[in-house]
């Protein structure tokens, strides 16, 4: 005996088939190529995120030219501080070699960012100076060499 399939069911099945294929076709064009390569995201996005240019060159890049400063710095308490902490982003300077492309900060406020007295700083973490009392009116670098802070200038 032949199974009777009502025409409305056949049409329904056909409609479903059309919609599902339409969905799969659209999906093929809309989902990016690398989506799902590593997980639920566009795999190529990892490459995008690795693309941006660096601005901070890293201490090793500085020492390739400034060996003298490296030696000077190594002898005193600022030895662990990387160059770009004070001098700012150096990649532009590394590429151009122009001294105008690097910062040379001076002034009590700048040194005070680290050395100003504050109860929130641990006593042993950093040498703290009361900027309201310590040699008022003088610039820090008049006495201290920032690369070698305890070799006092006369």
């Amino acid at each position, binding site marked *: 005996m032949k199974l009777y399939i009502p025409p409305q069911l056949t049409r329904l099945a056909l409609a479903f088939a059309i919609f599902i294929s339409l969905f799969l076709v659209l999906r093929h064009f809309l989902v990016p190529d690398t989506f799902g390569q590593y*997980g639920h995201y566009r795999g190529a996005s990892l490459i995008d995120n690795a693309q941006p240019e660096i601005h901070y060159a890293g201490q090793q890049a500085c020492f390739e030219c400034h060996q003298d400063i490296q030696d000077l710095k190594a002898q005193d308490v600022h030895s662990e501080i*990387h160059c770009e902490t004070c001098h700012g982003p150096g990649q532009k300077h590394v590429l151009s070699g122009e001294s105008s492309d690097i910062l040379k900060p001076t002034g009590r406020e700048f040194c005070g960012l680290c050395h100003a007295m504050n109860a929130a700083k641990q006593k042993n973490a950093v040498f703290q100076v009361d900027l309201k009392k310590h040699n008022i009116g003088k610039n820090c670098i008049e006495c201290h060499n920032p690369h070698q802070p305890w070799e006092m200038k006369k």
Partner: protein
Amino acid sequence: MSQSTSAMGNEKIKSSRRKFLKSAATLAGATIGYSWLKSSQVLLFAAEPKDESLPWYGIVIDIEKCIGCGSCAKACKKENDVPIEPFFFRTWIEQYTVKNDGSVNIVSPNGGIDGFEQTVPDEDIFKSFFVPKMCNHCSKSPCIQVCPVGATYDSPEGVVLIDEKYCIGCRYCVQACPYGCRFIHPVKKVANKCTLCYHRLKKNLTPACMEVCPTGARMYGNLRDKNSELVKFLKEHTTQVLRPNLNTGAKLYYNALSSEVR
């Protein structure tokens, strides 16, 4: 006469419709077949293979070493071209001051970039300390779970990243992050956050904030390598993550974290 022409017209329409349906079906079938052949994962992206050969990054911030100089926040803005408006930060510093009466004073002027001043007089201070904040790079992160389009994800190295081309700027993730580490970039109009300087890590450079930290209060390393500096530090110190009750799987560990920190 008129009847025969209309019949011919019907015939024409029928044949061209049949032709169209035929070619459409062929095209659809070919596309489906091709996408099926290209990869067998047409429908499901549930599996997330973790590559054991890659590092699995974690971060340590030592509160005892932080002096609140703001170098990290400043460097982060410069390295990642973060907008200079004072309320957009990928990393920032908060100064906590617990007073003798038990109240807590939390300040973060311009994220700490211009330094801090202690406004509470010394005799009223019970204790005071700095807490640098940044993305916790959670392994079960809420921000990834709420993203409706798969534009934010955990990279194979355990770094939570954003796909800027795919993000629709719906702000769900900004609201979902319990640490307040995300914002909408005012120019790009998409979500933005700390990437652990992914572009620097890939060039074997340290993240900008860690490069410039004068006291070495910030550290990153490979949690898979049991001999790494980071894992050694975690072994030897009492560390804690922020909001452990939320089970976010945060990978940013704080040394000497006080209970007042939120």
